[in-house]
């Protein structure tokens, strides 16, 4: 009798262990494959040409479209980002136009010389600092320089 009970318990436990292994195996694979983008697939920064600096109005922010190629899953992706660039002699200041609130592209605010976001009226001053509305952080900076007469921008925005 005791033997019978332990055999039943053994088989029940066996069902549990085998099902558990299969569920853990497939569930783990699902977690890893589907959840992978949590830690992978980050865009890496690279220097790309962004036009002729002589064509930009000096001393003020100019809207510059930066186009670059990067890996997009299995494709060679074409990416675009909007930047605001100010050239003062050899000095280049560049901000990413991405609002720190929810990612819209900000516009130049003619009245303040800073930036404003059309989505939720976020405001930044001319140093990119968030001064009004919902944005929690300043605009991100972009590394930029003039090389051989060409404006070069690094595509990875940095915290100001």
């Amino acid at each position, binding site marked *: 009798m005791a033997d019978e009970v332990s055999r*039943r318990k053994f088989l*029940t436990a066996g*069902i549990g262990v085998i099902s558990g292994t*299969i569920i853990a195996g*497939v569930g*783990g*694979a*699902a977690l*890893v*494959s*589907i959840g*992978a983008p949590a830690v*992978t697939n980050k865009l890496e920064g690279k220097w790309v040409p962004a036009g002729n600096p002589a064509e930009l109005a000096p001393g003020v922010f100019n809207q510059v479209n930066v186009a670059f190629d990067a890996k997009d*899953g*299995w*494709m060679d992706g074409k990416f675009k980002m909007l930047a605001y660039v100010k050239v003062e002699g050899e000095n280049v200041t560049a901000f990413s136009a991405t609002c720190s609130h929810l990612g819209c592209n900000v516009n130049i605010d003619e009245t303040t010389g800073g930036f404003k976001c059309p989505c939720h009226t976020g405001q930044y001053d001319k140093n990119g600092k968030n001064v009004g509305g919902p944005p929690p952080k300043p605009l991100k900076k972009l590394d930029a320089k003039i090389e051989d007469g060409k404006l070069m921008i690094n595509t990875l925005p940095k915290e100001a």
Partner: protein
Amino acid sequence: MFAKIGNLLEERFTYKRWLKEDVFEHKVPNKLNFTYCFGGITFLMFLLLVATGVIMLFYYVPTVDHAFSSVEYITFDLPAGVYVRGIHHWCANGIIVFTALHMLRVVVYGAYKNPREFHWITGVVLLGVVMGFDFTGYLLPWDQKAYWATKVGVLMPKGMPFIGEHVTAVLMGGTNIGALTLSRFFALHVAVLPLVTAVFLLGHFLMIRKTGVAKPL
């Protein structure tokens, strides 16, 4: 907390009694042997195919431009992707083997006879579905093997008198293997066949629960 939820469910649905009586202490004829596992193994493989298939659906794209590169991405770039695709590949092969063994057991034991004729009929439909899955799934990686195997497969019905040419045209979505073939094979593979399988599997299972399995020889 789980114990509490379990108790609430038990109060309302008496699931513990159901588990005990219908799963762990389910009554079966004496001296059942391991050949009775083949159907269950086939079902387990089906479940694994569904799970790994859904995972790959997050990455696979059924267009002629991207199908091959997305499969390449799953296999070589995606973390655990080769493992997921491997399970899908081997279960797709194994399910044919175990379906055949399952049917062989049923034939040898005469288990298709009264009162289990409809189990057999739904089973034969499911055999067709399994083969449909393997045929349509074979094209999806869009490589050379997929292309030519499908070409051979869709041209076979052409031999049928009168309707053959039309059947082939419907399968291919035209007169050549291309974008239309790939998208309709994909639709069959991930939408139509799974639904048909669900309906017939449910019938298959409910009927075997009602009649019980055939006694061993």
